[in-house]
């Protein structure tokens, strides 16, 4: 019914999609999995009209179509539910649902809000969301917003005669488990009217929901698997193109930490509205992981320690010294390194080259009377490129042009080379492909072996369990429970989730 034939797409220096054939039947749910950079999002963007292919055709019911922009794709019944939420936070739910299509409610140039509200209620009912359409979107939970997003796309049902194709881009990443189940239920119910393309990095979820699964790697479809034949490990191998190391999180390499050397002490520390009465010790060589849902206060603790937020009460000691003044500059001088979640914005400076990025946190070690010692910088960069296996043509390469994994290594090298003894990792593997993730895990182990204290907010619970010596579970800004995570006696997922929610 909807078909892509031999789609080709080039970007400068990259062959993003190569000869991609993709089709979807009426009422079918098709999964699309692949590593980061495999071409998933490029393919999505071609389907909903944000990009135009360089070669190949798109057909709907056998007729060739071309989309110049997303609006044209929508007029042909193709809707996109965005991963990064496309709702405007300070508009009401109904304003968001009908954004750009208010005309149907306009009489004599005035919007009939009553009619819009009624219509919005109908849309919300489709996604089983019982909220007032006049609610300001900001006040909804992430899960509810995701459903509103779907409701917004479902307005296509009224506007378009034919069958719909709806793209779901990582819709579950912000949802709790029951919300995921609800979403899946809704999607299944809607297959009478629409086909779905479901993209997620959680392969098990894709398996559960999809009738067929496309596996994409390096811009090519490498396999199409039927629901009944699908297996998580087989698909993973196809995505990566090799076996995943059984020792994924390097658990066997975990060594006990030195409990006699305390690097950081939090004593009853609070930051109003973010977290309350948090106490812990971070030891040399320890990987301490803060676990909790979004909004549990885990990132706030990292940011306090680094100096980007001031705590409002309690006492913080770093290497035995009580901290009175918090700032990022002071954090660096206390030999704390911070690896932020927003790698491309806070991690590397896009537009500066490899050595400039690596020495940015330690300019004073590379200057004499204010003049930079560039040869010294370059030799440091060369050494760390070798040590961490950073793939870059030279030290002069703009970091913005490197892959995510290499960027992350450069951020790590920035702190390691500066001699940081405490490293704060905020989602260090976010958006990295499996190979690059393994590299990061390896580096975490290596840092821990070298006596660096690591405070981690992990991307997944599995990661947290695999990497940690100690886990602290937080909920709504309060400490819930601590877990010892020695190899062989690690807590289960259930143990953690139980205390998180």
């Amino acid at each position, binding site marked *: 019914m909807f078909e892509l034939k031999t789609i080709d797409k080039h970007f400068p220096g990259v062959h993003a999609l190569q000869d991609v054939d993709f089709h979807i039947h009426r009422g079918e749910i098709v999964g699309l999995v692949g590593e980061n950079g495999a071409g998933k999002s490029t393919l999505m963007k071609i389907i909903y009209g944000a990009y135009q292919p360089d070669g190949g055709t798109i057909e709907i019911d056998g007729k060739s179509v071309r989309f110049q922009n997303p609006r044209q794709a929508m007029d042909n019944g193709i809707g996109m539910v965005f991963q990064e939420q496309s709702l405007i936070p300070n508009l009401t739910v109904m304003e968001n649902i009908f954004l750009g299509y208010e005309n149907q409610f306009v009489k004599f140039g005035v919007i009939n809000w009553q009619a819009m509200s009624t219509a919005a209620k109908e849309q919300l009912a489709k996604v089983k969301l019982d909220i007032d359409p006049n609610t300001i979107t900001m006040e909804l939970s992430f899960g509810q917003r995701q459903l509103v997003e779907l409701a917004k796309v479902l307005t296509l049902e009224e506007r378009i005669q034919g069958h719909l194709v709806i793209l779901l881009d990582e819709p579950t990443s912000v949802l709790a488990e029951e919300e995921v189940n609800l979403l899946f239920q809704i999607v299944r119910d809607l297959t009478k009217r629409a086909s779905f393309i479901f993209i997620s990095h959680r392969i098990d979820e894709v398996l559960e929901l999809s009738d067929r699964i496309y596996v994409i790697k390096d811009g090519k479809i490498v396999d199409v698997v039927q629901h009944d034949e699908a297996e998580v490990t087989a698909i993973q191998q196809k995505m990566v193109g090799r076996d995943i190391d059984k020792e994924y999180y390097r658990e066997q390499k975990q060594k006990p930490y030195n409990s006699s050397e305390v690097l950081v002490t939090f004593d009853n520390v609070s930051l109003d509205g973010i977290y309350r009465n948090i106490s812990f010790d971070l030891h040399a060589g320890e990987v301490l992981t803060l676990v909790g849902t979004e909004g549990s206060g885990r990132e706030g603790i990292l940011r306090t320690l680094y100096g*980007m937020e001031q705590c409002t009460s309690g006492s913080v000691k770093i290497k035995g010294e009580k901290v009175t003044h918090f700032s990022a500059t002071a*954090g660096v001088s206390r030999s704390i390194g911070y690896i932020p979640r927003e790698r491309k914005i806070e991690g590397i400076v*896009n*537009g500066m080259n490899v050595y*400039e990025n690596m020495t*940015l946190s330690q*300019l004073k070690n590379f200057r004499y009377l204010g003049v930079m010692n560039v040869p010294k910088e370059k030799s440091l960069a060369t050494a760390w490129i070798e040590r961490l296996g950073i793939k870059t043509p030279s030290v002069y390469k703009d970091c913005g042009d490197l892959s995510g994994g290499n960027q992350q290594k450069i951020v790590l090298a920035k702190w390691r080379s500066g001699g940081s003894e405490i490293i704060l990792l905020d989602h260090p593997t976010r958006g990295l492909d499996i190979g690059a993730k393994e590299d990061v895990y390896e580096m975490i182990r290596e840092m821990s072996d070298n006596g660096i204290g690591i405070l981690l907010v992990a991307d997944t619970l599995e990661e947290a369990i695999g990497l940690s010596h100690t886990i602290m579970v937080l909920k709504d800004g309060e400490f819930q429970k601590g877990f010892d995570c020695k190899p062989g006696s690690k807590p289960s997922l259930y143990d953690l989730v139980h205390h998180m929610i």
Partner: protein
Amino acid sequence: MSFKFLKPYFPWITLVMLTIIVGIANPGFFSPAGMIILIADIVPLLIMALGMTFAIYIGGIDLSVQQIANMITVITTVYLAQFGIWVVFIVIGVGALFGTLSGYVTTRFYVPSFVSTLAIGFVALSVAKWLSGQRALYMDATFRDNSFGWVFGKTWGIPHELIIAVVLVLLVWFLQTRMSFGRALKAVGSGELAAVASGLNVNRVKILAFCVSGIFAAIAGLMFSVKLSGGDAQLANGFLLPAIVAVLVGGTPLTGGVGGVINTVCGTLIVMVIRAAMVYLEVDATQQQMVFGIILIIAITLTIDRSKLRGIVK
């Protein structure tokens, strides 16, 4: 790909093409003597634009430069008799003070630099009017020649003004490319959040950038003042627009992070050629700002980094 590769060279290509066009229309343009006069004439503007580059490079702007220069012409004229050549230190000190003030207001009170520098500019203008009693002041010719006469001399046919300009260009070029302050500027201009997260004292870097801008505006005012042998609260009017045009046409976009002082040298030369062309085409002086206004918009449109704006313009 080729567009991206060529983009850094656009200002130079533009300069060469404009020069050729003007030269063909008016062969006299190429005479070395005439050229040197033209270049020497543009020196105060170049100095002002060099300072402004720092403000724009970090993604801000400094609208106070013209008023600082106005104020400095008055200060120079008033204090020349008393301090002689040492008035230079007063000039630099006052420029640094006003620039720092702009930077301080911008960073501590979260006032966008286009507003803070506009306000500080009016303070400077007011000082100029108050100090001059709103009259045009003139320097004593002997004092001027004793202290600053050498500025307008020549060595081997090269005007000293030009030598001063070259020295200042080399100085800021060194500051920008070789010193840690320049590195910090680049980090703030290209990725401010990453600079913060790397522990850089971003506010101090920004304040220093405005300080440099203030100092160079003051030096420009000094040059202009001794050149015209007087001071007046309106003497440097008409400098602001060409200075901004010089920076942007040179290839330092309003979004900051790329370009730099050498680009501004190129931009200033482009402004010079355009001015020469306008003189040749007999464009009235009153209409010149009109031309520069249009060029400014074109330059911004061509250079601005839209990915940094994220589609939001207010």
